[in-house]
């Protein structure tokens, strides 16, 4: 028998263990991507398949480089949050934490690799 009240025990312990921050963050990312994805397909995607000189030349221009950085970083953040929801739905216990931490690290790592690569090509 616990002397704590039911309300006090439930307080701050909803099923998500947090409020609506995760939902709202994904919503902001998704609206940003509605603009960025078409711009990426117009400004960056045509470089895929070009030869080495063509690719380095393409990404040395400011607009494709900036759109590539923005699209890839926002996409990876959106992916990390979306993947977290997938895992929270289907995997529980230790593996839930392992997979969420692993994918979050992979997404941040891949973003930084992309930013470094584009900065090196652009500058």
């Amino acid at each position, binding site marked *: 028998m*616990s002397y704590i009240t*039911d309300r006090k*025990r*439930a307080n701050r312990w909803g099923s998500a263990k947090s409020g609506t921050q995760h939902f709202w963050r994904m*919503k902001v990312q*998704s*609206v940003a*991507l*509605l603009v960025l*994805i078409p711009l990426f*397909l117009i400004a960056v*995607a*045509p470089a*895929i*398949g070009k*030869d*080495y000189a063509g*690719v*380095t030349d393409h*990404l040395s221009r400011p607009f494709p480089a900036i759109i*590539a950085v923005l699209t*890839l970083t926002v*996409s*990876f953040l959106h*992916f990390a949050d*979306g*993947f977290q929801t*997938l895992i929270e739905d289907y995997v529980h216990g230790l593996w839930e934490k392992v997979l969420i931490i692993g994918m979050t690290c992979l997404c941040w790592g*891949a973003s930084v*690799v*992309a930013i*470094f*690569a*584009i900065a*090196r*090509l652009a500058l």
Partner: protein
Amino acid sequence: MADVNRGSRPLSPHLQVYRPQLTSITSILTRITGNALIVAMLMIVWWLIAAATGPDAFAVADGFVTSWFGILILALSLWALWYHFLAGVRHLIWDSGVGLDLDTAYKLGYGVVGGSFVLWLLTLIILFAV
């Protein structure tokens, strides 16, 4: 009260007990396409860092990206991208509290599936032919 039956509560009926419907299939596809896009994203990051490294590294990455397998991944990912894009728009509409009745949900579902194929073919032709 809050600690009664913790850990062995009944779960809600899961996917397999329902007959597939347009609304459920379009919802599941949103999740599958979104998560599958990681493959193309990592491939593009590899291609970028290879280009930043030098001609030799680029030749390896470009060889994979422009192989039939790489092109297959990119082409399928382009459909997944448009599907997830339009399904995301549908969620933003729903989040505003509009279109949650069954009739509108079905219309939006057909719009997402149809629109994804239209935009896919359009961008496939533009990106691969030009």
